[in-house]
């Protein structure tokens, strides 16, 4: 593989297997997509612990009316950093990491198109995240919410340097994500194995491919907004300051013109994982490959026409509100079609409930709930009623946890054997699943009710109104269940890495190309591959082998 005609440095040692020892220098200098994918996953896990700790502190503070465990200012910093960390430093890097590892494998390539760009993307993501979290040590974390509405995020309302770190950190990770997006598109377009036409790639590849266009189109808008915010704060300009000729509304437009595609950036690769997991564990072909692929494109296009539904209370006027309400409801259609596709794939299938499959099924249920509450808040008058209440908190967590995080868990249980060569312990996995499912629904389902009862979000404490205390307490207990589940999950990872059952090449009898090579793959993923003729190449080739023998 050559880039700009110079030799690309490729790691010369064998890939991480659990037994061999690795120099840290080799990891740092690596341009191998598999090592970078693994690094992405570790980075996400690291930030997941930080973001989770912030969430637990918040639930502790909210467990009972009138508690004083953290100060109001700390609470502001906690919910801001929790949201920002989880969106930009956990969910995105995990999805990008899984794609970095598996996209080249699934299309039968040995490397990404631009290995060094790939390494740059990873390190930008990590250092952006470290910068953001450094704000804790530098006088205070950002405290204006993860979307940092101006003028609250401006210097005269937010004195600490937290929001400066927020701007710079997110610009840095954003550039990393753009690099990853470029790499995915070009790898998919130019490095597929013979016979794999673009319209016959695995759905995970397809969805990452479409998703990358969203990244490329959305992140520049965020970066432009962040640059203006930073110049406002550092050089005293007036972009988002209404009293000196600027416009606070402009920030909202920039942020959500990025922010809503971002929601789909977090959802689409997850849809891809589900579209791989469900057919394998139902022993059936995916139902409606073309529909799933096409609806992905619709979602991607529509996602740029819905951003103002975050701004129904900003006073944009009825015509604009109506337009964006209609757009938001329209986007429910392609998503709903996908749900039907996945269910139809399972219909009359020979379903095997591995932990991965359990998470996939739970995803369908909980993501549908999140989708329904999403359609609900697309109705303008209802949104006016529940905006900025716990209803919105419940909705976003049903989409990001019940949606994206469940798909990530499904993907990790599914692909861990390929990455490490060892199976994750299924018994611990089931504990993880059931505790997390219970805890998640306990924590967030009740928040729908709290929202309807009018409890505002982002307030550090609340009075002892009827039902407020008990509902919040149950919610906090649910969070503890999730904490225990995550501890089990992490224990499972470390235990299985050391002494898990050996996986072999293809433990799930799956049929996409990554299962054709060894677990973990060698530095060179494949030496040679037979021609790909269908969506299930590995099964085709096994059949051919059997036919040749007889």
């Amino acid at each position, binding site marked *: 593989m050559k880039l700009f*005609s110079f030799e690309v440095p490729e790691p010369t040692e064998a890939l991480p297997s659990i037994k061999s020892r690795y120099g840290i220098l080799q990891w740092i200098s690596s341009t191998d997509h598999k090592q970078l994918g693994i690094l992405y996953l570790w980075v996400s896990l690291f930030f997941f612990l930080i973001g989770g700790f912030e969430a637990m502190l918040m639930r502790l503070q909210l467990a009972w009316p009138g508690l004083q465990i953290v100060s109001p200012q700390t609470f502001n910093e906690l919910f801001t950093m929790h949201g920002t960390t989880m969106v930009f430093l956990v969910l995105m890097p995990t999805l990008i990491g899984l794609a970095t590892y598996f996209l080249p494998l699934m299309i039968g390539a040995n490397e990404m198109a631009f290995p060094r760009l790939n390494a740059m993307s990873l390190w930008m993501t990590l250092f952006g995240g470290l910068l953001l979290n450094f704000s804790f040590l530098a006088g205070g974390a950002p405290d204006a919410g993860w979307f940092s509405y101006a003028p609250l995020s401006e210097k005269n309302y937010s004195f600490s340097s937290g929001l400066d770190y927020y701007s710079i950190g997110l610009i840095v990770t954003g550039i990393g994500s753009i690099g990853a997006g470029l790499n995915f598109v070009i790898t998919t377009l*130019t490095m597929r194995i013979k016979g794999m036409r673009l319209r016959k790639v695995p759905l995970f590849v397809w969805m990452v491919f479409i998703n990358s266009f969203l990244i*490329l189109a959305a992140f520049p808008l965020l970066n*432009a907004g962040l640059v203006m915010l930073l110049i406002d704060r550092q050089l005293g300009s*007036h972009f988002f300051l209404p009293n000196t000729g*600027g*416009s606070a509304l402009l920030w909202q437009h920039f942020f959500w013109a990025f922010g809503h595609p971002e929601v789909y950036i977090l959802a689409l690769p997850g849809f891809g994982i589900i579209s791989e997991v469900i057919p394998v564990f139902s022993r059936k072909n995916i139902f409606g490959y073309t529909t799933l692929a096409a609806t992905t494109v619709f979602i991607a296009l529509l996602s740029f026409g819905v951003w103002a539904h975050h701004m129904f209370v900003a006073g944009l006027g009825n015509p604009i509100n109506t337009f964006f309400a209609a757009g938001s409801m329209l986007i429910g259609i392609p998503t709903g079609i996908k749900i039907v596709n996945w269910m139809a794939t399972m219909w009359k299938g020979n379903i095997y409930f591995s932990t991965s499959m359990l998470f996939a099924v739970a995803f369908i249920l909980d993501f549908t709930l999140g989708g329904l509450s999403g359609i609900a808040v697309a109705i303008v008058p209802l949104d006016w009623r529940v905006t900025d209440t716990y209803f919105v908190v419940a909705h976003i967590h049903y989409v990001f946890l019940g949606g994206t995080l469940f798909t990530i868990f499904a993907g990790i249980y599914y692909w861990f054997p390929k990455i490490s060569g060892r199976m994750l312990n299924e018994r611990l996995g089931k504990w993880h699943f059931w505790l997390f499912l219970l805890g998640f629904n306990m924590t967030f389902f009740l928040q729908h009710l709290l929202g309807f009862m009018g409890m505002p979000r982002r307030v550090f404490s609340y009075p002892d109104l009827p039902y407020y205390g008990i509902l919040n307490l149950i919610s906090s207990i649910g969070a503890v269940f999730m904490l225990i589940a995550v501890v089990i999950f992490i224990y499972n990872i470390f235990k299985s890495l050391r002494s898990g059952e050996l996986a072999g090449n293809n433990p799930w009898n799956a049929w996409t190309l990554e299962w054709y090579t060894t677990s973990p793959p060698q530095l060179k993923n494949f030496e040679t591959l037979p021609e790909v003729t269908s969506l299930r190449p590995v099964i085709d080739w096994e059949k051919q082998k059997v036919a040749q023998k007889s």
Partner: protein
Amino acid sequence: MKIVFRQTKLLMQLFIASESLFFVALIIAYVYFRNFSDTWEASTNYLNVKRTAIFSIFLFSSSGTITIAKYALEKNKRKLLIFSLILTILLGATFVFGQVTEYMDLYNQEVTINQNIFGSAFFTLTGFHGFHVFLGLIILTIYLILTLLDVFRQRDPSSAFLAAEWYWHFVDVVWVFVFFIVYLMPLL
């Protein structure tokens, strides 16, 4: 077509498309503020359109000289390549010089980034464009040095040149829009 060349081509197309949106956002901000404040008037009061137009011609003509460089590269004319690259860099540098002196003039008239919304939007938009031109100059200089060192004798230069060339055209085209919107539209 060699795969590396094809990949570089795609990379530049997508990168330019993505980076354009960054400028679209900055331009939207600039135009948007017209509704709330006197950015349009300030533009006609403070900006010296003729002077900037002359410096713009330097930038626009550098797009021509880099096309000559492309021709020289294809025909393997080393001297012409080096000459046209140096010319491109000089033309680009002249533009940046013009921008710096323009900023100094404005500073003397007490138009600064923190003085009013016109200053904020103007300096951010033109500043980011100037920054991109400056990056382009660095890229072209690196390419020139590599050519002078004969690094490309054994290696295929076409991908590297393509990247530099398209990037340069990109900053040029952005300036067409910026110049039209910031300098000319208030006069219409």
